[in-house]
């Protein structure tokens, strides 16, 4: 089977302004959402307590609220269904540092009258740990980006590095925008998903860039946009296929993976779509706008080649004993 057969290059770069505009609009919308609505920070980052309770039969949500309101600590706690009608999640901003007071036992006791229940999960994060996790998460993101920037500069050229990192920021920002839009609860797993997007989207971009790098050497055209068009078109089949396989695999995780993994899978799904889009329509135009010069690159390559050849010549002469 063959779906994407290369016939002639698509004229992508000619349309790059349109895609650029689309990306800018998406970026602005995302930033607007992040700044106005803000993240729905979960207990991992905001601190607080989350208790997941499973009932035999449907959970009596009103009764649960009533029973919790009787206690000072749990007054006004949010109670929502979780995955099914039998399970609820209770969230409060409070956390207790005292070992002797067991949260699970307390909730068990408070809800005794509401039915047969089982405390299935307790996540209690003190404010201090929450803020530590926030800083750590942010540091991780920054360090990953710097590491990637360095590696790409080393393997390609600085313009490639800038273009790939800008594409990355584009993807992460839009993914964050979607997280805010759909009120996904941001916990550690979402951070991991964002970092995975970082790696994944870059993976896509690198493969396109690799082809462009190769194109600059082999395609005998002076015009960068023509080279990019041809290179991107040639990788189009791979980019779409891999994205599709990964997308469907993550989709199974989203559908069948259970409620706990939902936000994680959702973030990845968004990331895969945006990452694929950006590697084709965002990263390459940026490369062009940054003024990557084909002749300059070829000259440099030629100088490098010449130097290597000279070295080889010297070595040969040395080995032959002529020096």
């Amino acid at each position, binding site marked *: 089977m063959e779906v994407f057969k290369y016939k002639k290059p698509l004229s992508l770069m000619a349309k790059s302004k349109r895609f650029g505009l689309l990306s800018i609009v998406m970026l602005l919308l995302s930033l607007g959402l992040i700044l106005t609505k803000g993240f729905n920070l979960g207990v991992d980052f905001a601190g607080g307590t989350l208790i997941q309770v499973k009932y035999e039969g449907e959970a009596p949500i009103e009764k649960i609220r009533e029973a919790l309101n009787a206690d000072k600590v749990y007054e006004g706690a949010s109670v929502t269904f979780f995955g099914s009608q039998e399970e609820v999640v209770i969230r409060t901003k409070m956390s207790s540092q005292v070992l002797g007071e067991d949260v699970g036992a307390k909730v068990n006791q408070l809800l005794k009258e509401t039915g047969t229940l089982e405390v*299935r999960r307790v996540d209690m994060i003190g404010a201090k740990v929450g803020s530590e996790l926030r800083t750590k998460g942010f540091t991780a993101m920054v360090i990953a980006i710097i590491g990637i920037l360095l590696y790409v500069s080393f393997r390609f050229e600085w313009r490639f590095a800038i273009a790939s990192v800008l594409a990355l920021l584009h993807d992460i920002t839009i993914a964050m925008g979607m997280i805010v839009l759909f009120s996904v609860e941001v916990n550690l797993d979402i951070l991991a998903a964002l970092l995975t997007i970082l790696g994944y989207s870059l993976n896509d971009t690198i493969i396109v860039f690799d082809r462009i790098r190769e194109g600059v050497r082999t395609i005998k055209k002076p015009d960068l946009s023509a080279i990019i068009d041809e290179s991107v078109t040639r990788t189009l089949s791979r980019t779409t296929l891999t994205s599709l396989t990964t997308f469907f695999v993550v989709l199974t995780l989203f559908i069948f993976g259970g409620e706990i993994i939902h936000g994680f899978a959702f973030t990845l799904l968004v990331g895969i779509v945006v990452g694929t889009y950006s590697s084709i329509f965002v990263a390459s135009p940026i490369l062009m706008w940054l003024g990557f010069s084909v002749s300059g690159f070829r000259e440099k390559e030629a100088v490098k080649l010449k130097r290597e050849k000279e070295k080889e010549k010297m070595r040969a002469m040395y080995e032959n004993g002529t020096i």
Partner: protein
Amino acid sequence: MKTLNYRVVLLAFALIFGIVFSIPSLTQSESGKKIILGLDLQGGLHMLLGIKSEIAIESRIKSMAATVKYMFDDEDIIFDDLRMNENGTITFELLDNDDVVKATALIEKEIEGTVLSQKSLKFSLEMTEEEKIRTKQDAIGQAVDTIRNRLNEFGLAEPTVAKQGADKILVEVPGIKNREDIARLKKLIERAAHLQLMAVDEDRIARVDTMSENEAKSFGNIILTDVKTPQKYLVRAIPVLDGSMLTDAKVGFDESNQPVINFSLDGQGAKIFGDFTGKYVGKRMAVVLDNKVYSAPNINERIGGGNVQISGNFTFSEAQDLAIALRSGALLAPVIIESERFIGPSLGADSIKSSSLALMLGFLLVVIFMVLYYGMAGIIANVALIGNLFLILAVMSLVGATLTLPGMAGIVLTVGMAVDANVIINERIRELLHQGKSIGKSIEDGYNNAFTAIFDANVTTLIAAIVLVVYGTGAIKGFAITMGIGIAASMLTAIVGTHGIYQWILPKMDKKKLNFWFGIKQEGAK
């Protein structure tokens, strides 16, 4: 005709290695190294504890003061007004000028990490900053050991207690599910088990009910209450000795068959205790545990040998937990919860079920797609994919890595991404075939052309994974580890391994059957 090449041998070796070492994990056999299931999959309690280290410093100062008192008494140095002040200093006054040299020498020799300053005959003893830092670190280290000892005696399966970062203690108890067990476990950890033997101030105790705390302080005393009744005791603030000199504690029974705790003191403790009881005959000594008076027996005679008994109306299981706590040593500072995660075993089982289902479905999806799209080349890629899965399991089993729920997600994701390398390679091969190159040439050039792209792409993903391992905690680390192993394994199986298979079967490949081998139409052959 080509025979077996090193690449195929390597792949075969990787496959066998993968299968052999993942069998123990897959069959859950008794022997062999297995993947450890994370707490989120098997259920259990995870806690991050902190300590109130300023209390550790306070009690260190207290024990310094006790040492000063004991030394001076022992050496017949006459002193007055020995007290601990709000600012953390110990002050005292010597009455005899001739004792100054002896006293200073004693303190310098016996009490480390302090600075002694003198104003005429008034002395002030202060802890150095380094000593404070050391005391805090000691308190953490000691808390880790103590909590570990207590949990080991509690009788639950393989609890983990470890220091995390500079000032936190990680406690993990897999398999615990009963809320009562959790509550009891937390109480056992929380227990300071700070034992003190204190002299009752018999001269002023009559006025204890009307005395304020500040007034008591001015006499160098503190007011403590009885563990069960509201009765108050006035005792000397500086204890005779504390639990650090205790060597053993056991549950026993007294004459009326009530549970009691018998404990023994080490040599130095026994000597101090003997000396004290000798001097204090006719007065009372309070046995104080965690600032509650358990008993205050009258001293009838000098007690040598260092065996002491605590009675205090406890039940047998209370006495038992108390003895464990005493034996494992006191906590130098109170322990607090920084974070707690509990996953019930049923939720863990649900997570395993649903993530395995997702893994299997995702895997099937990819495998079927590859065969449909690439024909035989897809099957070859699938062999690599299966090898990759086994390798991940085998490596994780061998290094004893923990499989968490995000780790499962990492494997699912790896399945999606591992075929990426083969997609890239196959696309390259097809391209060359379309240009009319021979199969052998197309395969060799295809692998060469694809290599840099795959390598660079994998390295960048690895960078993200490594950052996650370094900065992530618990479950997130698990995700990054599986992803990292998956990427590394895919370099072996998807690049080297499939290349080997192609070289091996190349003689059988027929340019007339490109659709069967690579899933493309014939027209490439010009």
